[in-house]
């Protein structure tokens, strides 16, 4: 149980000793990370909408579209197109109905329910039409599954104890706990508005768990999870710099 802190401490001591014995200089560096996609051909970006499912407490389509648009507005060179969010579930359902009768699309509760709608991303003609409508931008779409989680697991927490002299100590205690939270999984798909073809797609998955007695609104959990995904999303379109320090040796 204490092996980890001891290891961390001993490695810190080793580093300090090494630093004392050698001529070393700490220097700040910024590592540039190149974007995964070349978006030089586009001036505009359209976050079209998402096929979303999971909990009904959060509208994954609307919230994801809104959040990505606001992030792109401040953190990318592309001009963000303001438009109504596309109801992609309906679009995908329309394409599938052959009898012409209006049917309500089945709810998306689990990941496997998405399969029935995913064909819409490969519909080149549809995306080309959307591209023409908005002057051939880069189109961002995909899937978002925001689902509740429940896990029972052993967690480590700190507990106050008092010894026979009445002295207070904090010790780590492992307990079996029921935990609740959410998972956010899906895929960002980048489509060329000129041809309707998919340029790049990227899967994501994040989880957050809280103590069962803690009440956290679904929407704030959603934003907490999206916060973790945003850097990855942005690094697809624009270059990022990671700040850090290193030790130069003499």
């Amino acid at each position: 149980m204490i092996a980890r802190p001891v290891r961390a401490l001993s490695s810190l001591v080793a580093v300090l000793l090494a630093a004392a014995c050698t001529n070393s200089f700490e220097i700040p560096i910024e590592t540039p990370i190149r974007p995964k996609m070349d978006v030089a051909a586009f001036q505009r970006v359209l976050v079209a909408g998402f096929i979303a499912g999971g909990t009904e407490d959060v509208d994954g389509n609307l919230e994801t579209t809104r959040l990505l648009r606001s992030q792109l507005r401040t953190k990318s060179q592309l001009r963000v197109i303001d438009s109504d969010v596309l109801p992609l579930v309906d679009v995908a359902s329309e394409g599938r109905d052959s009898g012409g009768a209006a049917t309500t699309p089945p709810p998306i509760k689990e990941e496997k329910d998405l399969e029935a709608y995913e064909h819409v991303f490969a519909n080149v003609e549809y995306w080309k039409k959307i591209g023409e409508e908005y002057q051939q931008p880069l189109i961002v779409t995909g899937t978002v599954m925001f689902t509740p989680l429940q896990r029972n697991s052993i967690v480590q927490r700190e507990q106050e104890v008092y010894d026979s002299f009445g002295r207070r100590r904090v010790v780590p205690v492992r307990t079996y706990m029921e935990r609740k939270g959410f998972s956010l999984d899906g895929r960002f798909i980048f489509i060329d508005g000129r041809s309707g073809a998919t340029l790049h797609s990227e899967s994501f998955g994040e989880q957050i768990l809280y103590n069962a007695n803690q009440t956290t609104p679904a929407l704030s959990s959603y934003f907490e999870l999206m916060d973790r995904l945003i850097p990855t999303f942005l690094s697809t379109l624009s270059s990022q710099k990671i700040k850090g320090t290193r030790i130069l040796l003499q």
Partner: protein
Amino acid sequence: MRTAAVPAVVLLAALAAVPLQADARSDAKKQVEFGIAVAQRGLWREAIYRWERAAQIDPSYAPAHNNLAIAYEHEGDLAKARTAYERALELEPNNALIKQNYELFREINDRTTRQSAQ
């Protein structure tokens, strides 16, 4: 007579190599020092030139490879940075400072590799 001369020649050659090696190390050190001074002023290209020279002069001088790795990292050339860190660690596997630099580098490198594999 001839057989006795062979070890003597080898010994002489080894003795002659020691000052040569020491010269190489001191020249490499000078380049490394200059590289550090310019890197601290933000002149990373010049620093790379100096540390590359140092690594050429004395390929067994670990600080030159460590510093080069940092400079390559700063320039975004992660493949070259990895090679240089690995060379530095090959030369000084127990150097805690090189190990620490390499761990921090790997964190970034692994993240970018994972992202592009997705």
